[in-house]
C-alpha cells in the first residue's frame, strides 16, 4: 500500500468519524421515525390497545381516501395556504412600500409593527378567541358601537376559517413587511434616481422597478410563509380545535385529532398522504414561480 493510499484511507476515516455524529442524529431523529411511521401506516395500532397491533396492508390509506373529512382537510389546508399567504404578501408589500421612506417615524413604526411576530401563538390564539367571542367579545362590541352587526366569527361553520385567517394574517403580515422592506431598502439609490429622472412613477415604478429587483426576496418570503402555512397547527388548535364541526380542520389538526382518538395507524397513514399531497402542491407551485422568474429575467434582459 502506497503512502498516498494510506493517507486517503485515513482521510476517509476521519471524514466518516466527523460525519458520524450528524449521521446518528439524522438516523435517530429523522430517518428512523419516518421509517417507523411508514411501517405504522400499514398496521392497525390503537394507543388504547397496544396489544392488538397487526399488519393490514393499504387499509388505512383506503379508509382515509374514502373519508369525506380527509378530503375536506386537504381542501381546507389548500384554501388556508392560498388565502393567508396571498393576503399576507399583498398587505406586507403594501406596508413595506409605505414604510420605505426616510422619515424618522419609520424606525418607530418598524419596531412597533414587528411586535405580533414575537407573541406566542398560544397567547395570541387565546386573546383572539376571547376577542372573537360573539356575545361577550370586544370585536362585536366595537362593531355594535359603530352601528354595525356583529359576526359569529370562530363559532360558526361559515365564518370560523376566516376568523382564524384574520388572526394569522395579523401575526405574520409584519414579518412579510419587514423582509420586503429590507429588500426594498437594498435597491440601489442610483436606480431609484434614474427612475425618478425618467418619470417612472406609481404602478409602473412598482411593477417595472421594485418587484423585479426584490424578486429573490419575494421568493424567499413566499416560500417561508407557504411552508409555515401548510403546517399550521397552533393557532387553529387554540382558537377552534378544528371546529366548529370540521370548519377549520386543517391537515395537522385533523391528524392530531386522529391521534387523540388513539388511532395511530390511521394517523401515520394520514401523515404520509399529507406529505405526498402537500409536496406535490409545493413542487407545482415552486415550478410555476420559477417559470415566472425565468420569464421576468428574459424580459429584463430584453
Amino acid at each position, binding site marked *: 500500500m502506497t503512502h498516498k493510499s494510506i493517507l486517503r484511507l485515513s482521510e476517509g476515516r476521519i471524514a466518516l468519524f466527523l460525519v458520524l455524529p450528524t449521521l446518528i442524529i439524522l438516523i435517530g431523529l429523522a430517518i428512523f421515525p419516518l421509517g417507523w411511521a411508514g411501517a405504522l401506516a400499514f398496521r392497525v395500532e390503537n394507543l388504547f390497545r*397496544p396489544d*392488538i397491533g397487526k399488519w393490514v396492508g393499504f387499509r388505512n390509506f383506503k379508509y382515509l381516501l374514502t373519508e369525506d373529512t380527509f378530503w375536506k382537510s386537504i381542501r381546507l389546508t389548500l384554501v388556508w395556504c392560498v388565502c393567508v399567504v396571498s393576503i399576507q404578501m399583498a398587505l406586507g408589500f403594501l406596508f413595506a412600500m409605505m414604510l420605505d421612506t426616510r422619515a424618522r417615524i419609520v424606525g418607530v413604526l418598524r419596531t412597533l409593527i414587528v411586535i405580533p411576530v414575537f407573541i406566542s401563538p398560544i397567547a395570541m390564539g387565546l386573546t383572539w378567541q376571547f376577542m372573537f367571542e360573539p*356575545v*361577550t367579545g370586544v370585536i362585536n362590541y366595537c362593531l355594535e358601537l359603530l352601528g354595525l352587526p356583529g359576526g359569529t366569527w370562530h*363559532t360558526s361553520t361559515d365564518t370560523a376559517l376566516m376568523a382564524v385567517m384574520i388572526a394569522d394574517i395579523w401575526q405574520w403580515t409584519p414579518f412579510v413587511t419587514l423582509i420586503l422592506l429590507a429588500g426594498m431598502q437594498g435597491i440601489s439609490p442610483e436606480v431609484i434616481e434614474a427612475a425618478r429622472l425618467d418619470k417612472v412613477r406609481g404602478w409602473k415604478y412598482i411593477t417595472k422597478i421594485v418587484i423585479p429587483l426584490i424578486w429573490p426576496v419575494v421568493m424567499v418570503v413566499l416560500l417561508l410563509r407557504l411552508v409555515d402555512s401548510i403546517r399550521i397547527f397552533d393557532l387553529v388548535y387554540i382558537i377552534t380545535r378544528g371546529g*366548529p*364541526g370540521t*370548519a377549520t380542520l386543517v391537515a395537522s389538526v385533523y391528524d392530531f385529532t386522529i*391521534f387523540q382518538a388513539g388511532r395511530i395507524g390511521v394517523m401515520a397513514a394520514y401523515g404520509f398522504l399529507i406529505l405526498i399531497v402537500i409536496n406535490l402542491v409545493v413542487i407545482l407551485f415552486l415550478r410555476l414561480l420559477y417559470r415566472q422568474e425565468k420569464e421576468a429575467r428574459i424580459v429584463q434582459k430584453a
Partner: protein
Amino acid sequence: MSGWDDLYKRTMAESKAMKEKISRRQMMKIMAATATTATVGMGSRIASADTKGPGWYTDDKMKGKVTMFVSAGQRWELPARGVLPLFNERFPNIEVDIQAGPHGEMVTKSMMLATSKSSAMDVLYTDFGQWPAFHAVNAMEDLEPFASKDPGWYDDYNKDTPTGVQYRVPANADGTLYGLTGDGNAKLHFYRQDLMHAAGIHKVPETWEEALEVAEALHNPDKDQYGFITTARRGGFAGWVFWGMLASYGGEWFDKQAEGGWHPTFNNDKGYKALETLMKLMKFRHPVTLNATDNECNTALANGSAVYAPIQWGTAVLQNPEFSKFPNDIGTDLVPRGETAESAHRPLMGGLGQYVSAYSENKEAAWEWIKHLNSGDYTDSRISDAYIEHTGQPARISMLNKYENIRPHFAGLKKSFPVAVSFVPLIPEAFTLSDIIGNEVTSVITGEKSIDDALKAMDKGVEGVMMDSGYYG
C-alpha cells in the same frame, strides 16, 4: 340483560340500601359538618381530636417518594393538593410529588405514560372511563392486598362509593379492585329558574319534548339570550351528548356486552330519535355550542348568554358567586328522558380516580396516599373539608349529603347517581369509539350528513374498531 342494565340495577340497588345507612349517619354528621362549614365558611380547618374517625392512624416509619401525574386545576390537582398537608401529618416521611399537566391532552398523555412502564410514575390520577385501557396493558396494580389490610376502611369505601364508578375486574361487586374513584360526576339538567318563572314555566322539564318547549320559550337571540347549550365539540364531547340522549330513549351502544355480542346498535329508532331531538334543540343553540367543551358552556351559562343546559356535566362553578352572575337562579335536576315507553332518566356518569402503577417502586406509600385521598370522614373529617374546599366533587354519597348545603349541584348528583349509566362502556376502545360517534354527530349538526347516514356510519366505524380488537372476526 345488557351490561348497562346490570350496572344500572346494581348501582340503584346499592344506592337505595345505602340511603338508609347514610340517613342514620347523616343525622350526626351533617349537623356537625353543617355547623363546621357554616362557621368556618370552608375557609379554614379546625384541627381537633373530634375530627378523627375510626380510620385514623399515623406512620412515621413508612418512607419514600410518591410521584402522581394528574391534570391541572379543579377537581383534579387542587383537591389532591388540598388533602396533602393532612397526609404529611399522618405520614411525615412520605413525600408526595404532584405533577400536574394540561387536561386537554391528558387522555393520550396518560396512556403514553402508562405504556412506557416507567417507575417514575407511582400514581396516575385520571378518568375512570380510561381505566380499562390501562388495565389492558397491565399498568394497574391489584389493590385488593392493600385494601384488605384495613377492612374497616375498605367496607366504608365500598358502601359509600357508587358501584357505577368503582373499578373492578370483572365489573361486579366481587371483582378485583384496581383503582379508587374519589370523584364522581353526572350529566345534569341546568336551568335558569328566574327566566323560567318569568316565562310562566313552573315545572322542571321531565321529557325532551318539554325541554324543547323551554329552550324555545327562553330563546331570545336579539337580547343575546340563547335557549340551549351543550358540549358539542367534534369528537368525544359530541359523542357523549348523543349517548346521553340515546340512553334516555333506552338505547345502548351494543346488542350485548359479552361474548357473542359487541355489535353496535346506534342505527335504530332510538338512535334516530336521539339525534332528531338533538337537532331540534340545536335550533336554539348558543353560538359557541358547536365547539364547546365544559369551559365554554359554563362561561356562557355563568354570564347569562346561555340560559338552558339540559345535558351538561355537573359543576360547582355555576352556583359560585365568584364565577357566575346568577348563582342563586341556576337550578339543577335530572337530565330529561325520552317520551317513548322504553325511555327513562339515564344521566351519564363518570368519575376521576387514582390507581397505583404496576411499575411503581413505592407501592405501599402510593397506596397510603390514594387511600388517604379517598378517605373522607372515616379517617378524618378534615380530609372531606379540605377536599371540598379545594374544588373536589366527591363520589362518596356521604360527602354529597354533607356538603349539599354549600354545593347545591350535589343534590343533582345525588339524584343522578342511582339511575346513571357510565359515560363510556368499560372497554379499552371506549375513547376511540366515542370519537367515531362524536364525529358522526357533528356531521349531522353541520348538515354534512343525514341522520340515517350518520347512524349507519357510526355502526360501521364502531364495528370496524371492535373487529380489529378481536371482539369478533
